[in-house]
Structures are given as C-alpha cells and as structure tokens.
C-alpha cells in the first residue's frame, strides 16, 4: 500500500459534503488536532449524489470520489426513494467502472478479430457504412437499438438523428423486452403512459398484493419500504401471489401459488366476485370509467410483423357483467390452481372500503403473450372499487431499467413514437419537425417494426446496419440462436457502443468505447416518474464517450452537425432545453435541470415548482380538471379511464408430454440485466457465480435429481446444461423450473420462445416449455 502523509490522510478520512449537511448523517474526521483551511478540506474529497443505475427503482446514492476515482458508496438519506438504504448491488455499484477488461478504445473487426483503432477512424467507418447502406438498400435498412439505460439525452439524440434526419423509424429499445406491455396497458386504460401513483403509496397502503413478482430480489429497496410500513403498522398485510416460493413469500403474511400465465383468470374472477358482492364503487365507476371491448383474435406474435392494433369498441356495464359471468372463482380455480375461497378472500380485500390496497407487479406479468391484457385487468380491479390515484390506493407496474419509467419520457425511442406523440399523427410529426429543425417530410408516418421484428428483419436482410447502444441483446433476446445467427450473417454491419466485451460485442463489426454512469452527465427517469440527474464525477477511461456524443460525432460526419449541440460539455443542458419544448403542457411537463441539481429528483409532471405524486387526482395533479369531479383521466378525451373486457386465453406454448415443464426466467438479487456489470463485481460474483436451474423438490426426486447435480434443459429451440438447485433460494411449484437470466456463460434465452404480446410487442420470455434430462452426479461438493 502506498504510504500517505498525514495531510493526505486527513483529507481522505474527512467527509466534506454540502449535500448531507443538515441531515442526520454525521460527518467523519480522524483525530485532527489542527483543522485544515476549508478549501483544503474540499479538495478532491467529496461525496457526490447520483441515482443508482442497477435497476429501475432509482435509489439515491452518495459516491465518494478521491483522486479522480470512485472509492466508496453509501445510501443518500435525503433520497425520497431509498431514504438512506441501498441494496448490495448499489453498495458495490461503483466497482463496475473498474473492470480490468473495460473497453477503452474503439475496435474494428479485421480478419475476424477486433483490432484497436483510433476513435476517429472507427467513427469514420460507421458514418461511411451508414451512408452506403442507406444508398444501396434504402433509408429503412438502418436501425438503432438502445435501451432505458440510455439517459434521456442519449435517447433524444438517437431519435432525432434516425427519425428526424435519416428519416427511418427503426429506433427501438430493449424496453420492448421488459416493459412494453406495462406501457401498452397504461396507454389503453388511462390513455397516457407513466405511473399513476408513486412509491409513497407504500407508506399509505394497508394491503399489498404482489402479483407474480419476487420483489425482495427484483426491487429490494421498495420491498424494504413495505416491510418498514408493516413494522410501523402491524395490521398491514403483504400478500405474495406468485408462481414460485421465494424470499418474498417468506417475508409475506400470506403466500399464494398459482399456475404461470393464469393471472388473467384470477383477476377476472376477483372482479366477478366484487360485482357479485356489490363491492363496486358505483359512484366512481359512473363518473370516471368507460367500458371497452378489444380484439380477442390477436394471435401470438410468431409471424414476422404481428403487431395488432386493438381498435377497442364501446361496451357498457351490462356487457361487462355478462362478460364476467364466465369467471366464477370456481372456474378460475380450475385454470389457475388458486382455491376459489382464496380468490374470494382476495376480492374481499380489494372490496373492503376501509382498506387501501396497492397491487404491484413486474416483468413476469409483462413478459407474457397476453401481457397487455393482464395489465388492463389489474387496473380493472382497482377501477371497479375506485382505488386508484389516491395515496395508498395504487395499481403499480414496476419495470427494471434505470430510465424505464415510461415511454412518455423516453424521448421517442420506440418504433412508433416521437419525443411527444406518435409518428402516425400528422400534428405530432409537424411539432417534431419544427422543434428538430428538419423538413416534416423527413418523418415517416408509418411506424417501424418492434424489437423482435426488427431483429427478424435483420435476419431477412431488410435491415443491414444496426447500431446497438447501452444494451446486450445477444444475452437478452429470446430464442437467442436465431438472432445471433442473424447478426452474424455476411453483409450485416453491427456497431456496438459498450463498456465491456459481451456476447453482443462478439458479433460486432465496430465496437465503440462507451462512458458509463458517473463518467458522463444525464438524466434518468425512474418507475415513479422521478427525474434524477446524474453528473459526471470521474473521467471516462481512454477514448470512452457518452452514447449521445458518439452519435453526434457520426451525425457530424453525415453532415447533420447543425442539428446537435457543438460541445460535449453543454450537451445535456442544450438537449434538455430543446426536449422541454415538446412538453410545455402540465400533463407531461418536465422539471428544469437546475431544479434537478438542487433536489434529489423530481416527479413529472412538474408544474410551477411542484412535482405531481398522484396523477389524474384533482387534489394532487394540476393538469386534472376539477370540473370532472375528484378525478380527471385526461389521457382519454372523455376524461374516463377504461375497464377493458379481456378474456383468459391459454399461452402459446404450454407444457406437454415432450416438454413437461414451464420454464421461468428472471433475476436474482445480486445481478442485474445481462450481468456484464454485476458479474465483474467480486462480492456479487462470489455470491452467485453462475446461472443454475431451480427445481421443485418433488419433481427432482421423481427424476432422481439431487442438489448440485448437472442437468440438461431442452426446449424446442435449444438445450443448456446447468447445475440443479433444490431447496436453495426459492422453490418453483411442481411442473415448473426457474433459471436466472444474468449469466452470459449460460444463456437461458437459447431456450425461450420468441412469441410476443401482439398489442405491445413484448416477448413472452417468462413462459416457455422445457424438459429436464439427468446427466450425471456432480462430484466434489
């Protein structure tokens, strides 16, 4: 260890944080006998505020920076999200910057291998390929595929370059894989994306119903808030309604198990019971709800361009009651395995006027061929009993990426969206063209294909150039072999902006070094609509630059420099100002960047210095019109939220004699996303070093499989050998297995099906069918 002189030592151990002054955090100092001058205390020794980037919750962190490097982390007690707490990922998050194999310079594939080149040379090549491809194959032969790990400015620049300048709607994000059904659900029920309530609902609710989400591992800090709530008010109940027994189940008051994909039947049966018992809030329904019937013959998204427009038609109360007639709790029990009396009991909790109920769900609900429907049905329950948009009454869908809160503020990075509105709408196109400073004809009125179809187009050859940023599709796409083969085809040019070598850089023709969180400025918008500013606090290594800046450098080479900020230093400010022009109205208004610097995040809509906690409530939301009563669901022109008539339909693939197990995929607490960051963090890696398959103990003993043994999972799409874990962290129900999806060494998505919800385009990666084959007993344990 390098020796330090006393002065340097004092500086290091001292805590100098204006940010925490006045809070209950106390500073630290070690035995200073004579204090140093104030300026000296501050020098290169700071705790800086940032949102965590390792899930969608957005906990506030304080990062300690010394000598230009992040050296420690603690929870930010001023953060209204984490309130001083983080999880083990957050506490170790800064280590993700310092992997020894960080991509620090550009690389170009030559003779099959990636070779380091100067950044300018790589950018020249990207621009040249982009120009050549559009000339040869047309403007829709190029695409950009990003993620909600983009900051808002990265997303905005990508949308503007591709949709505004190049004129193609091939702009898509991996949000489609994780949250598209949540967005489509909000869009159809409320007419507008973005959560209705906020995390503060947790501190008001009396009952939490967790719909197939292992919240203790997926969103640990939110789950801690629920446990805190329960500790403060022991009458509060947490109900874990799930397809496997997890850490969440053990902490819950009641654990209820059901068959995967059958939530549709359970939710409708709960509504049926609420209607039958006359627990409906008739006043709320009469005043604020309209009934709609969507299409039911929508398929399973297995064809190339299978997205379906819903075209909902009017229905009414009587039609809804007749529709619900098919969903008695007994019928739902037959499908779901959840006992009818239990369904009735759940309905009684929702129906009890004295209880505030918060329903929470996540990726498992969304990653389903009927994900949009399920979101609608969960809102239906809350709308029937009037338990929405007020403190503690909340139907809350959670998504997993740091800026994945909503498409409203993803700056127009889905294939049909603009920074405001959709490409099909001429008014929205005109607004975008005017603000962007491009001819309106540049913006194509036809939406492009959603994520999977975009990769299918790459397979067919309709798309020849793809720039992938801030995501790792060669781990996260379902039916992975198909899309890896597509990317590897000759005459496909793949550019990847990345911080680490990944399975996606393995198929890249050019790799550009990406600056990470803490190394660049930006804004993330979390699940509760909270905009949080991240500031550059350390320098990126080598040639690494932010995704937005790399794209602007290419735009400049294509002759579009006048459309983008000329200097990297002011990029975020200038983009924010321009982007804010899209959202002047109180429904979606953004907080100014300066306000974000002084506050630990602000929830949009941000109107006249106030954030909005509960949208559509005339008490809390300045955009809501009081003339419409206590609520104004202004997303729809008639001011009413929708109760959608959505039936139960079986999934595209169910277990059969050949493939008798459901395969579930998901997360473990220690890892996030495709694992390229968390697998490099020693504490996290040691805890969960590789993927495994979790089995039910009875299934395992029936097959003669013991804990620790290696087994082979086989689906219609591929096979994978994994270590079996029985009675380990969680236990699936019989007939089900579970594999974490973080491990690039054991790619479970080689097995999953690439069907998707035809309304949202979100793949159904969480429900596929597999069989389990015994190989050999594992030795050495």
């Amino acid at each position, binding site marked *: 260890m390098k020796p*330090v002189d006393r002065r340097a030592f004092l500086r290091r*151990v*001292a*805590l*100098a944080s204006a940010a925490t*002054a006045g809070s*209950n*955090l*106390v*500073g*630290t*100092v*070690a*035995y200073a006998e004579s*204090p140093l*001058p*104030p300026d000296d*205390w*501050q020098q290169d020794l700071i705790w800086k505020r940032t949102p965590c980037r390792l899930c969608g919750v957005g906990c506030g962190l304080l990062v*300690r920076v*010394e000598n230009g*490097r992040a*050296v*420690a*982390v*603690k*929870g930010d*007690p001023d953060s209204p999200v984490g309130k*001083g707490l*983080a*999880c*083990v990922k957050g*506490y*170790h998050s800064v*280590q993700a910057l*310092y992997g*020894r*194999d960080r991509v620090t310079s550009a690389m170009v594939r030559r003779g099959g291998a990636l070779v380091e080149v100067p950044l300018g040379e790589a950018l020249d090549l990207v621009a040249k390929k982009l120009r050549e491809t559009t000339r040869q194959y047309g403007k829709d032969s190029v695409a950009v595929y990003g993620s909600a790990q983009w900051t808002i400015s990265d997303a905005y620049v990508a949308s503007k370059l591709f949709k505004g300048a190049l004129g193609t709607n091939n702009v898509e994000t991996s949000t489609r894989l994780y949250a598209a059904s949540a967005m489509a659900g909000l869009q159809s029920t409320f007419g507008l994306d973005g959560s209705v309530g906020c995390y503060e609902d947790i501190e008001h609710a009396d009952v939490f119903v967790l719909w197939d989400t292992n919240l203790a591992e997926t969103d*640990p*800090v939110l*789950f*801690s808030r629920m*446990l*805190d709530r329960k*500790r403060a008010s022991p009458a509060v109940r947490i109900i874990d309604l799930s397809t496997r027994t997890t850490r969440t189940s*053990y902490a819950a008051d009641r654990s209820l198990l059901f068959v995967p994909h059958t939530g549709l039947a359970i939710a409708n049966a709960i509504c049926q019971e609420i209607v039958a018992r006359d627990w409906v809030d008739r006043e709320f329904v009469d005043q604020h709800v309209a009934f709609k019937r969507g299409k039911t013959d929508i398929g399973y998204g297995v064809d190339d361009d299978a997205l379906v427009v819903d075209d909902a038609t009017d229905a009414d109360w009587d039609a809804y009651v007749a529709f619900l007639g098919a969903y008695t709790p007994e019928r739902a029990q037959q499908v779901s395995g959840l006992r009818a009396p239990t369904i009735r009991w759940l309905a009684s909790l929702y129906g009890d006027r004295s209880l505030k109920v918060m329903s929470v769900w996540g990726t498992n609900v969304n990653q389903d061929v009927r994900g949009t429907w399920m979101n609608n049905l969960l809102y239906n329950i809350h709308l029937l009993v009037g338990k929405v948009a007020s403190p503690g009454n909340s139907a809350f869908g959670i998504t997993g990426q740091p800026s994945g809160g909503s498409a409203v503020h993803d700056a127009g990075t889905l294939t049909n969206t603009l920074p405001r509105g959709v490409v099909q709408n001429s008014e929205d196109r005109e607004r975008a063209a005017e603000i962007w400073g491009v001819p309106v004809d540049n913006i194509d009125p036809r939406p492009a294909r959603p994520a999977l179809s975009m990769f299918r187009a790459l397979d067919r050859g309709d798309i020849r150039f793809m720039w992938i940023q801030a995501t790792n599709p060669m781990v996260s796409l379902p039916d992975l072999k198909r899309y890896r083969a597509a990317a590897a085809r000759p005459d496909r040019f793949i550019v990847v902006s990345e911080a680490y070598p990944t399975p996606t850089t393995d198929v890249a023709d050019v790799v550009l070094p990406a600056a990470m969180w803490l190394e660049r400025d930006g804004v993330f918008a979390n699940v509760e609509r909270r905009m949080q500013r991240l500031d550059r606090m350390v320098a990126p290594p080598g040639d690494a630059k932010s995704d937005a800046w790399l794209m602007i450098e290419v735009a400049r080479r294509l002759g579009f420099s006048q459309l983008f900020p000329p200097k990297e230093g002011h990029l975020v400010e200038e983009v924010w100002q321009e982007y804010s022009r899209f959202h002047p109205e109180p429904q979606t208004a953004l907080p100014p960047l300066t306000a974000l610097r002084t506050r630990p995040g602000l929830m949009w809509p941000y109107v006249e210095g106030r954030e909005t906690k509960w949208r559509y409530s005339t008490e809390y939301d300045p955009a809501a019109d009081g003339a419409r009563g206590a609520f104004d669901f202004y997303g729809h022109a008639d001011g009413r939220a929708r109760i959608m008539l959505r039936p139960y339909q079986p999934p595209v693939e169910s277990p059969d004699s050949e493939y008798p197990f459901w395969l579930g995929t998901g997360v473990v*607490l*220690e890892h996030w996303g495709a694992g390229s960051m968390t697998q*490099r963090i*020693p*504490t*996290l890696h*040691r*805890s*969960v*070093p590789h993927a495994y398959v979790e089995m039910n103990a009875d299934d395992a003993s029936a097959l003669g499989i013991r804990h*620790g043994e290696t087994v082979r999972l086989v689906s219609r799409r591929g096979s994978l050998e994994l270590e079996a874990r029985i009675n*380990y*962290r*969680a236990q699936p129900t019989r007939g089900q297995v579970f594999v974490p999806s973080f491990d690039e060494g054991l790619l479970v998505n080689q097995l999953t099906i690439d069907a998707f919800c035809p309304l949202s385009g979100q793949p159904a990666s969480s429900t596929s069918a597999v069989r389990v084959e015994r190989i050999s007993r594992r030795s050495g344990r």
Partner: protein
Amino acid sequence: MRSRQSSVTGPLLSVFLIGSAATAGAAVVVELKDATVSLGAQRERAEVAIPAPPAAPIAAEADVFRTRLDMVAIDPLADPQRGAIQRTTHRYRVLRAYPGAPPSIPHGFTGDEFRTGSCKTCHERGGYSPRFNAYVPLTPHPEMGTCLQCHVGNDELTGVSLPNTDPNTICRQCHPPNAVRRVETTLDWVPMAWPQLSSKTPDRPPPPIPHDLEFRGNCLACHSGPGSLRTIRTPHPERASCRQCHVAPDAGVGAFTRPVPDTGDGAGGTS
C-alpha cells in the same frame, strides 16, 4: 420524596436507555404526550396553547442513546472462552469492499437460513458459537428486516450444513477454495483508505468517530464484547452515553473564525 418533575423524566430516560431507536422514539412520544396532558391541565387557565411534541423523533438524535448493554448477551467485560478464534483486522477488511461497505458473509449457511434470512438468531444477541469456535459479531441494526439484501454470501459455501466438525469444512467457512483469488483479478479497484486506529494511551483525549453513523449508530454492537474486533474494542463499555465524549464532527467545517464585530455604523458586521 421524589419530586413530580423527576417522576416524569425518570421513566422517560429509562425508555431512552433501554429502547432501540425506533421503539424508543415512539415510546418517548407517548410519554411526552401523557406528560403534556397533565401539565396542560394545570396550564388551562392561563390560556396558553399546549405545546405539542414532534410527531416523529428528531432524526439526528434518534441514535444518540441507541447503545445498550443488554444487547450483548454476555457480559462484555467477562473473559472470553479460552481458545476462541479472534477476529482479525485483516479479515474485517477483506470482507468489506471499502470502509463502510456492508460486509459479505464469510460462512456457509443452510438452505433454510438462506431463504428466510434467520441471521438474527445469532447476530442479534451474540455469544459463543461452538459451530465456529468464536464469539458471534453483532449487527448494529437488528431492526433491519432483510439481511440478505445488503449482505451476500459465498456461493461455494451456500448450503453447507452446520454445525460441522469436519476440520476441512471449518477451514472452508472462512477460506473458500479459489473464490477470492480468482475474481479479484477482474477489477482494478482502489477503495478509500481505512481510518487509522488511535493508540490506546490512557491520557489521550477521546477519539472522534471516524465513520458515518447511518445503520451504525449502536456503538456497543461493534465496539464491545468478545465478538468485536479487538483493535476497536472500547475499554469502558459500561458507559452507555458514548457520544457524550466521542463526537462525530462535520468535516466540511473548517476552523472557527471570529465574525467581524458589527460597529453599528454600517462599516462592519457579518457578511
């Protein structure tokens, strides 16, 4: 005979001293409310508004009397079990990615312990553990519910059933094969410096607190008892009011400087 005043403050103080932070705060409010009601009855005629105590305990003060001897199941002054394995500073640091990081779990635990996080069975009260031939370190925040949210273990030891007398397994409790050396090559990580420990000369002034108190407000949990790290163990655990002598200064503040006196003629005054 005890005065009326002391009959009010007596129970209050004892609540402070024995309660944990959360419960103490709540109990204080209750007691204060009762006290104000009776005092208020006397004051009613004076038509003065009855002052109300804050609804929640003052956050910055919540931990001050957090430290409690009764948390340490065994007398912290008693001689430890002979031959018990002592924690070392090196080991203490190896388990933490940086000073203040949540320590990772060095030992194996069973599937049931893993799923339910029953860590507090041992780590809330402490004591001698024959399983490890060591005294159990205490958690300074037993009120936190989900230990495994911040503290994670080592996969190679997960599911190793305990207690186990096999000497090889005992070694692996703390020295798992391969794990440490293999992964540390993946990172180029320099944590912040560890606080230097003061020499224990008797005439030294009480050292200030060199770390944050967030989640670590209960001093005795880590600074007393045979399960604690010897180099940071206090010689006087019986003094419950640690922060009477050991302070946690705000390091952002420099030296005191005298404000310029206001001469009253507009020429001086504080700026």
